[in-house]
């Protein structure tokens, strides 16, 4: 069988499984639709949380990013796992004890204010939408490479599948589908990683393998990688290139942002008790850590294999994957010295960020010609999109076809599970917090359930449109979803539990200052003055990716200050805080 046939088979089988599970566990009440009836076993919920959490970005892009960032890649590894400690210790058990359906609902009641609830809904909608758009791109990439359908067609198929099981099954349906998706995605991630680890270091455990010696010789893998990267003009693989303060702030923004993401928090509302919420966060992190500790190993193997297989190779004899990805436009080669060999080193091969190809004409070696003028400051001739590393890795290491197809199925599973979780969170915010709690309090439960299904359908449609439009800025703003979650939602949730004195005025002032500060910093450097986006101009040397941490500190400071000058919250709110703190 060919790669394509294998991919059709595995992706098709996994889709059939998801739909069957959704049919078996469809929701019949609002409680089942929003929080799966609060009857999910903590281990099962942990697994569903892991699938919900690990998006197309974790599965497809992260290892590739780390492969090119080296030690700097630890911002993602620590940032996207450390938040679970905060979640387990500071938020999840208390919010579960509160016992309602959504995050804005807690904010609305704790701060006895519709305005606070609406601000929370706005933050939630913005965060969730930027995030979903990224998932749709992930599905598109997988489909276009492995099923050879148009990217838009791929997005359409993905939307249709999510539509069926999210609208039908609600939180209950997606919880059990996510368990299946976790199994598919972790298997798809580990199989090639183990394979490659054995090939490169003869050690079957990737986590240990990338600290081991190479098969042919006594040199350590990381030692060789440091040597080779330095020779090619890069900073050594195991050294940081970003400044310490920036690494600190980005990691912190990702951690606090993770803990403040509504679609993650809401997963802990589905377990039977606050004790289960604690445990469940631990299980979730185990399942996540399985992928997150494998990823840096995959990155190191991939970087090594990549350099070994293309450096100084004649283009005519270059491996098939190199040409396949060039066809799709995610690899480009500009033969600057006209010798027909591929030269890979530090620096951009040509002017401009993305390659622009001449449509019909081919170069002397059969390569796709580029419109971009060469960049003659360096010898590098190769452009590689970071997103392809995980997908291309099995091909680069010459693994069997079924492994390559499995990775494609895993990538789709990662994207769909995250998209579904986000959609439920979005629709709950609209139907429950905006309609039921704010604007249409008289509607019946059946009406509310109908509205939440409608809201899910509309959200899927919008997400698809964003995906098809393929707006370049979407990819840019995904990372900022974390900055906003850290600077708006996390502080008011934290203080809502641990600082009884915090009142409505303080919470709203805090959220607004966090939102305005973080958003304007990001917009200034990313959209208004992108040419100034370098450490010389940043505030305290903090990049837009890390500014959410500062926004969070501002929020905390503002909230506490404003609170202390205004009157304390009413007695019943104080009692509510006492009750979520108590062990009974």
């Amino acid at each position, binding site marked *: 069988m060919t790669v394509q046939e294998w991919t059709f088979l595995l992706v098709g089988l996994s889709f059939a499984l998801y739909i069957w599970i959704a049919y078996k566990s469809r929701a019949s009440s609002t409680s089942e639709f929003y929080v799966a009836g609060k009857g999910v076993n903590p281990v099962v919920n942990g697994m569903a949380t892991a699938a919900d959490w690990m998006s197309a970005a974790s599965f497809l892009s992260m290892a590739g990013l780390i492969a090119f960032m080296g*030690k700097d*890649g*630890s911002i993602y*590894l*620590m940032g996207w*796992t*450390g938040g*679970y*400690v*905060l979640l*387990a*210790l*500071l938020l999840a*058990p208390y919010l579960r004890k509160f016992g309602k359906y959504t995050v804005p609902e807690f904010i609305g009641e704790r701060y006895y204010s519709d305005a606070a609830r609406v601000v929370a809904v706005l933050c939630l909608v913005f965060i969730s939408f930027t995030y979903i758009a990224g998932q749709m791109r992930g599905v598109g990439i997988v489909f276009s490479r492995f099923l050879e359908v148009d990217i838009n067609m791929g997005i359409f198929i993905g939307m249709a599948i999510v539509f069926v099981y999210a609208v039908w099954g609600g939180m209950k349906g997606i919880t059990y589908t996510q368990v299946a998706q976790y199994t598919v995605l972790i298997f798809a991630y580990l199989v090639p990683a183990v394979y490659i680890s054995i090939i490169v270091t003869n050690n079957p455990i990737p*986590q*240990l393998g*990338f*600290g*081991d*010696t190479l098969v042919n010789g006594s040199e*350590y*893998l*990381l*030692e060789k990688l440091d040597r080779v990267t330095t020779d090619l003009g890069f900073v050594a693989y*195991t050294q*940081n290139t970003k400044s*310490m303060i920036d*690494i*600190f702030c980005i*990691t*912190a923004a990702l*951690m606090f942002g993770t803990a403040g993401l509504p679609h993650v928090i809401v997963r802990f509302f589905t377990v039977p008790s606050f*004790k289960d919420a*604690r*445990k469940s*966060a*631990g299980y979730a*992190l*185990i399942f996540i*850590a399985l992928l*997150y*500790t494998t990823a*840096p190993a995959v990155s190191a193997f991939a970087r090594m294999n990549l350099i070994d297989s293309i450096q100084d190779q004649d283009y005519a004899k270059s491996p098939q994957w190199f040409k396949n990805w060039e066809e799709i436009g995610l690899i480009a080669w500009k033969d600057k010295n006209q010798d027909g060999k591929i030269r890979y080193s530090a620096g951009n091969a040509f002017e401009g960020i993305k390659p622009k190809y001449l449509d019909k004409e081919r170069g002397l070696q059969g390569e796709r010609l580029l419109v971009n003028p060469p960049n003659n400051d360096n010898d590098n001739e190769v452009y590689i999109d970071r997103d392809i590393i995980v997908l291309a890795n099995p091909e680069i290491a010459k693994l069997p076809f079924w492994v390559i197809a499995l990775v494609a199925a895993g990538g789709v599973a990662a994207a769909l599970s995250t998209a579904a979780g986000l959609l439920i969170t979005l629709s709950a915010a609209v139907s429950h917090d905006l309609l039921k709690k704010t604007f249409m309090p008289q509607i019946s439960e059946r009406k509310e359930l109908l509205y939440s299904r409608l809201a899910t359908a509309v959200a899927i449609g919008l997400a698809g449109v964003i995906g098809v439009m393929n707006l370049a800025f979407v990819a840019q703003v995904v990372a900022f979803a974390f900055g906003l979650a850290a600077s708006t939602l996390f502080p008011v949730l934290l203080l809502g539990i641990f600082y009884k004195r915090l009142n409505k005025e303080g919470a709203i002032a805090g959220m607004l200052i966090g939102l305005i500060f973080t958003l304007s910093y990001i917009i200034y450097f990313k959209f208004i003055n992108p040419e100034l986006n370098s450490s010389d101009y940043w505030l305290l040397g903090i990049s837009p990716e890390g500014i959410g941490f500062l926004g969070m500190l501002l929020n905390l400071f503002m909230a506490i200050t404003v609170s202390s000058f205004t009157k304390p919250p009413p007695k019943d709110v104080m009692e509510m805080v*006492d009750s979520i*703190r*108590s*062990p*009974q």
Partner: protein
Amino acid sequence: MDNYWKANLKILFWLLLVWFLVSFGFGIILSDYLDKFQIGGFKLGFWFSQQGSIYSFVVIIFVYVYLMEKLDKKYKESEEEE
């Protein structure tokens, strides 16, 4: 109730201190210094930033679950006696 909350805050303080130490401490601030030491092919600071911190996070959460269950039990029993 107040004592339960104080005991809870104490547990949180120590565990979050460890959380900060293994990630921001060993993985970022002291990372370059720790890179002078090596375990197998890993420089120690690099290992903490890409592996060790994550393992520690998992352990921290389960220690928290264990300590809190013990605490919950203690306060449940003492209340039943009253």
